[in-house]
């Protein structure tokens, strides 16, 4: 098993905000192209703020910790602020991730961005920073199937 930081272990053992939001304002689901895993984020938006955020994760220990961290980072933030969350930021907040687990942090940020995009499309609004943030960050791993 990889050696994870204490922060990762804390979030893995006690993930925050796990769950689904029945009447979510935005839902983002993303599959991991590297190992075939999956993450779904749900957001509830009020006055341009992420009032509530929940997620479900099918993946490794890092992926679970990442989703928990992302949910913590964006809860209560404005949509613009939430869009500034990047995979490297998540990894840093988790006190680092093993190199071959960095792609799991992409998963978290991407799923969240997708949920925000889903909200924007549904409500026909434009959020600064959305389009240019939606592309995934460069992945180190080739997708092998």
């Amino acid at each position, binding site marked *: 098993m990889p050696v994870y930081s204490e922060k990762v272990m804390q979030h893995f053992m006690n993930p925050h905000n796990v769950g689904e939001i029945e009447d979510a304002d935005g839902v983002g689901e993303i599959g991991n192209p590297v190992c075939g895993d999956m993450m*779904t984020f749900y957001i509830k938006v009020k006055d341009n703020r992420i009032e509530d955020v929940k997620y*479900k994760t*099918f993946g490794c220990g890092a992926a679970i910790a990442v989703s928990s961290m992302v949910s913590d980072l964006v809860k209560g933030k404005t949509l613009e602020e939430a869009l500034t969350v990047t995979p490297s930021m998540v990894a840093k907040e988790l006190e680092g991730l093993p190199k*071959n687990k960095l792609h799991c942090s992409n998963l978290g940020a991407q799923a969240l961005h997708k949920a925000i995009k889903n909200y924007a499309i549904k409500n026909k609004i434009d959020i600064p920073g959305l389009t240019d943030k939606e592309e995934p960050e460069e992945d180190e791993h080739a997708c092998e199937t």
Partner: protein
Amino acid sequence: MDNVAAAPLLPEVREAMLPYLGQIFGNPQSLHNWGDGAREALEGAREQVAALIGGASEEIVFTSSGTEANNMAVKGIARARSEKGKHIIVSAIEHFSVFNSARTMQREGFEISLAPVDSTGTVIPAELLKLVRPDTVLISVMHASGEVGTIQPLAEIAAGLPKDGPVLHTDAVASAGNIPVDVKKLGVQALSMAGNQFNGPRGSAALWIKRGVRILPLLDGGIQEGGRRPGTEDVPAIAGLGKAAEIAKRDLEVRMERLSGLRDMLIEGVLGEVEHSVLTGHPVNRLPGYASFCLRFIEGEAILMLLNSHGIAAASGSACTSRALKASHVLLAMGINHELAQGSVLFTLGPNNDAEDVKYVLENLPKVVDRLRQMSPLYSKYLKEQKG
């Protein structure tokens, strides 16, 4: 319960090794008295190892690992026979040491064919035999899978091979010392084994090569091991291997019965108590200590981490667990899809495990699984679909 990764060294084996780390430090090749003790140890161990697999002692070559033995068998035999032909057959579930050795031979101009397995991880003899050609010089099929525990029908394969045809090698690293292994009954001409799989020291392994089968050494050097494996012998490790082989042979039946009992208890318990769990590997023809499963909707590394927090060690063939982030080729070859392979978990029982341990796993595994399923998007999708 991860004995396959690191089986504990038996105290008796340790005792057998100690003299060669202390007073008897001689080099077995020396002609003076100091070498005598070491030489005796070497030859004694050779007999013990040969007895375990039903071979002759002069057919045993000591190596540093099962990996080395497999490399030596595949490359050494293929190279020695390259004038006869350049075609090798290996099964689709071989260990990387066989696979990658075959790949190396491919770069040296050999053609490689993969023999398929069925859903229980068993090589289909008829399918393998169809691949045999006049220029096939080597076939390598493992005796038992170290990942799903399935025991292969080697005798059946051997019986179908043309006389004076390809050499049949088997990687018996997972099986030797754990189930009866008899090179004559199996019908093989070369067999790899490793001490650390039956409570011997790491760094101790052997290749058995039937008399008359030609093989080229991997390394060039002196006369040790009849020139087939030059390099100063690791006498303490070899003495330990010999002792472990002797004990394994002596205790084989008792151990098998005990471990099979625990294994069946674990398998029945998991299949009964964990919903959406499947046994991987053959239901009957499997190694005594092996209980392997795929648990749907969740991922192996997360399972291992939570089990670890309960003090339970296990292994997994999931993509996320592997360093290369690829699902186990063994599971995929058995027709298990990527998603199900993610939920792979393997328990390997050893001499230090008892019924209490199994009960403890059966108490905790369902909780671990439940916890991960509660946060799995696949599981909630499944539940919604069930509701219609």
